[in-house]
């Protein structure tokens, strides 16, 4: 009897945020929180599974901006500073909670120990988290894939082929530089696909990518096995599609696991709860309050407002994790049994992609859920975890399908990134891209400082293209930062262009930009002369 094949795919991504010219910068905390709450906790899960001899297999996209930030010296130094402050705060909390409440005190001690351990992990690999993840790739447990360069939404770039090519090529090169080998697969930003993209992927040696469910349901033709077997595009690139049931189980507002009353409440944080004098050294330098990561309350119930949340008990939460992981696997077993019957014994492939940061950052117990999930699956007869490559290697016969235009954004298309709040960016992004393409041909032979200016222009363009900025404008939080990021990179691009064309280059300013917007050290602007 065939078994079902389960692919867990975690998409780890944060936009490139680097402000070495400031002693601290609020938005740099996104990376620090990601490292503390998601990336290192995931590594610790993998270590425990490895130690216990559990068969665990998964795929992760670590996007080029994230790999670049992991390798950035300024950010590494700032992360250590940040963690030292956090440990200092946790120390104070351990003292302070002694008289407050035993549950709080227990958590305070937990946080102190956890933070110390995380910092130790970070130092042990010299902050090189890509390498730490790559260790599990070399063991065969994890397949790391790349993403297009700065997570630009490719379906909105198709009218400028050089743009698309540069996003793919630079993404592939970044992977090679950080991981030391070629990427086998790619996660297309926002799961965004449009027919024709497969040509670019093929050209850059990529053998698979992912689409949302409707990318295959509405594919040409509708595939025989729905989303439960990979298909191949005309160009010979494999496609995996998201299983809606797995996502539903985790995400659903009514029954989704992260909403369980026993789990930790995201919004009660001592960054907001403690008195100003006490908390000031541990929040943003401006005095603006923000999350510290130390939280003492549980979700309790949806009816409770933030002020009436009850105290969190980590042991109770861990029981919930075990229940939920068991429930998840039981449902997968049922699903596999049903699909096997429908497919006359052909093994179904269940692909479950998630944002990695869901696990740990917002669902505090998420990494542990992943750990339990693999422990439960280890005993399951109906299904096995696989990497995408392992699945491809078992395929003899595959249907040729052209996936439909799709993204995994709200309602499945481009509206999250193109609507009344952010539509204005595209004329500016397109204009910059067209300038870049023209100048790349015109200055093809450039060297010395001119070449540096052109390379920096390519960096500014790519940074402006991150889908993150448009996304933030839609969701409506920290909009000002996203608007300014878009404008700042476009403006830096324009200033560099003017200096280049007038041959009046301010080298000090160039040096500063190379230091601040330092993504893709080895970029070659001539990438913009290539279509496919």
């Amino acid at each position, binding site marked *: 009897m065939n078994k079902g094949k389960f692919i867990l795919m975690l998409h780890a991504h944060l936009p490139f945020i680097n402000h070495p010219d400031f002693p601290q910068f609020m938005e740099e905390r996104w990376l620090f929180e990601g490292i503390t709450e998601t990336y290192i906790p995931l590594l610790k899960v993998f270590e425990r599974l490895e130690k216990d001899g559990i068969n665990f297999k998964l795929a992760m996209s670590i996007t080029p901006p994230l790999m670049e930030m992991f390798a950035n010296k300024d950010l590494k130094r700032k992360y250590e500073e940040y963690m030292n402050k956090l440990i200092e705060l946790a120390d104070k909390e351990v003292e302070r909670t002694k008289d407050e409440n035993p549950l709080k005190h227990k958590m305070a001690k937990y946080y102190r120990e956890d933070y110390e351990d995380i910092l130790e992990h970070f130092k042990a690999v010299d902050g090189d988290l890509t390498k730490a993840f790559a260790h599990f790739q070399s063991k065969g447990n994890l397949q790391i894939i790349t993403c297009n360069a700065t997570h630009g939404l490719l379906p909105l770039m198709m009218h400028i082929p050089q743009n698309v090519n540069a996003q793919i090529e630079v993404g592939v090169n970044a992977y090679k530089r950080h991981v030391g080998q070629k990427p086998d697969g790619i996660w297309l930003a926002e799961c965004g696909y449009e027919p024709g993209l497969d040509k670019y992927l093929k050209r850059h040696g990529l053998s698979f990518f992912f689409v949302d469910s409707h990318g295959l349901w509405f594919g040409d*033709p509708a595939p*025989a096995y729905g989303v439960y077997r990979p298909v191949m595009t005309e160009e010979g690139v494999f496609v995996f599609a998201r299983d809606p049931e797995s996502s539903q189980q985790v995400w659903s507002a009514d029954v989704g696991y992260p909403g369980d009353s026993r789990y930790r409440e995201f919004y009660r944080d001592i960054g907001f709860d403690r008195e100003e004098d006490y908390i000031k050294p541990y929040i943003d330098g401006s005095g603006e309050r923000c999350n510290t990561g130390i939280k003492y309350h549980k979700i309790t119930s949806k009816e409770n407002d933030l002020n009436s949340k009850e105290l969190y008990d980590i042991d109770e939460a861990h029981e919930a994790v075990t229940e939920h992981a068991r429930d998840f696997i039981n449902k997968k077993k049922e699903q596999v049994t049903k699909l096997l019957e429908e497919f006359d014994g052909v093994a179904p492939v269940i692909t479950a992609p998630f944002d990695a940061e869901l696990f740990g950052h917002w669902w505090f117990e998420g990494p542990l859920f992943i750990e339990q999930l693999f422990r439960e699956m280890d005993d399951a007869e109906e299904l096995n975890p696989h990497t995408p490559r392992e699945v491809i290697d078992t395929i003899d016969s595959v249907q040729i399908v052209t996936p439909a235009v799709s993204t*995994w954004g709200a309602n499945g298309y481009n509206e999250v990134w193109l609507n*009344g709040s952010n539509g204005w960016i595209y004329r500016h992004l397109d204009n910059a891209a067209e300038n870049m393409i023209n100048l790349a041909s015109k200055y093809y032979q450039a060297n010395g400082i001119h070449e540096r200016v052109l390379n920096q222009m390519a960096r500014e363009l790519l940074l402006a293209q991150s889908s993150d900025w448009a996304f933030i404008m839609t969701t409506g939080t920290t909009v000002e930062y996203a608007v300014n990021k878009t404008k700042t990179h476009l403006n830096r691009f324009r200033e560099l262009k003017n200096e280049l064309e007038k041959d009046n280059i301010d080298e000090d300013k160039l040096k500063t930009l190379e230091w601040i917007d330092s993504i893709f050290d080895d970029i070659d602007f001539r990438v913009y002369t290539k279509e496919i």
Partner: protein
Amino acid sequence: MENRKILKFLESSPTIQELRSFAKSLGLKLRRTMKKRDLVKILKKKAEEIDNGKNETYKEVPSSGTVLKKHEEKHEIHSKPEAYDLPDSYKKDKIVLLPINPQWVYVYWDFSVDTKKKIEKFELKLRLHDVTNIIFDGNNANLTKEASINSYPGNWYFEVDFAGANYVVEIGYYEEGFQRIMISSIISTPRNFPKYGKHETWADLSKSKRRVTPTHMRSSTENAFIGSSRVSSIQGNPSSEEYLKILSKHLSGRLFL
């Protein structure tokens, strides 16, 4: 976020701390010096804005490319990003059509100085043509929608009739018939329905061969693995609607912001 939610929150006599974090979660600009009444004021203003429909997306009205607020306010926030303004026009003739979803497309345009001079006295029109399955000669569109425009440069959101259809947009004016100034490339709206063919193609990987077979569904109840999920994709795709709901409720931005 409905304005009711804001007003309800204000009625709950929130503390200054709660006011700050709530206002922040709405993306409102805060200053450290803001008193409680200032916070209440900006929240009320926000609720009013929503009420007036300022936050509505797809309104079929022209919006200029420069709807951005000027960043004049001085911030005391220590870690503040830079602020710049971008040019209103790049002074190039250009019209670009982009697909949003199966129901909407977006068009933006710009003019060179010369063109702008020539057309100033005319009333400009955008014409969106459905050119599915035809070779468009300017007059044979399956369906045409028209909009009067009054901004150079500018942009427009068009509601369209068909998913999986081809569209092209032109800009021009009427003077003894329609005079075209510019025309975009043809784009397709995404398909939101399945496409069944008579045949399916399979690749035999070990022999590097392809074979074509008649289509046959692998389940008597096709719904069990395509159909039922298709319905859920439209009504409640969990990684989309649900996802954004959760995001906007619990988090700021992509789980972080």
